[in-house]
């Protein structure tokens, strides 16, 4: 079973995303910010990361920059999931190595479609 790390400082969002992703066949791990997410990745690299942008400790974009420099850190498919919806922000995320980008609010169809787009389902 593929694993997806859900990184968001909102417990509600993590719960919603977990339900959606479990329904399309993922095993889920959760992290509340970039630091925690990085610790998770060092312990066990996931197949996918669903990543919020604005979080305490370490933001999503900082986490992504770190992740891509880690051993094995180029492998996970990273899908941003954030309220940030300016083109400049989206370009920045893609330049840092994000694979897809979801603008909140999202629903199950959007997550499923985006994950299909990057070949995860």
């Amino acid at each position, binding site marked *: 079973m593929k694993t997806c790390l859900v990184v968001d400082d909102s417990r509600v969002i993590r719960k919603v995303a977990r339900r959606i992703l479990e329904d399309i066949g993922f095993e889920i791990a959760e992290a509340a910010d970039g630091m925690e997410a990085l610790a998770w990745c060092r312990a066990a690299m996931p197949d996918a990361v669903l990543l919020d942008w604005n979080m305490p400790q370490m933001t999503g974009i900082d986490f992504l920059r770190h992740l891509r420099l880690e051993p094995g850190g180029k492998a996970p498919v990273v899908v941003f999931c954030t309220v940030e919806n300016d083109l400049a922000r989206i370009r920045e995320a*893609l330049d840092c190595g994000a694979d897809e980008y*979801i603008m909140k609010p999202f629903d199950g169809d*959007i997550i499923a479609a*985006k994950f*299909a*787009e990057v070949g995860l389902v």
Partner: protein
Amino acid sequence: MRPEDRELVAQLCAARAGLRVDPEKSYLIESRLAPVARREGFGSIPDLLTALRTKREDRLAWAIVEAMTQSETAFFRDRAPFSLFREEVLPTLARVRDGEPIRIWSAACGSGQEVYSLAMVVEDERAEMPGIKVELFGSDLCERQLEKAQSGLYTQFEVQRGLPIRQLVRHFEKVDDMWALSPRVRQMVRWRRINLVADLSTAGRFDVIFCRYVLCDLVEPMKARLLENLARALSPEGFLFLGEGETATGFEDAFQPVAGRPGLFARNPAFRVAA
């Protein structure tokens, strides 16, 4: 709504557009017709239908039929047909046409996502196919859908259904709460209101026709009419894309399924439509 009102709507849609409307689906019919009644200044849907019965006004009848044809769509819907178009159909036709324009028609284009997806593919592949000329056409029965399509404006929800993020970045700008398709891509498409089961002899010839999820919504006798129209409109070297599970039943001589490519049909050059 009374059963005879729903029956009237179903009959009207079948007669004018070949559209199959289930008179039992009262919720669907009411949700589509409520905006029409409001727009036309009627207090209720029954008032609208009473006016239709007494005045027999053509414009009103079409407003009702057009409202019933609207259906959900998405950018790159089903994904596979667009990969086929990009990887096989477009390069093949570029060779065959050799600098002459390739004409592509999105029949029943709705709010435009299908024809714009094709336009974006063409735009992205241009560098690979120097000298390629492509003419894109979008048609729909519904005037209001065509207006929305022409605007090229989509909600955040709409641009997240099927559109890869890199395509959004490449081809869209954010305008307030909406996403606007670049003028360059918008200008690639020409628009026309077309009833696919009417006489299409003046519609022209096309090398690629996308006509997906129309057949499955038609009343039985009109399916043959549509396929005959498509056979007439497709060039001898052309390709037809139907929706998942749709077949060219009765027109196997005209459209040959391409092996291993579900939904893709090649025009049999030897087939002639009876005059």
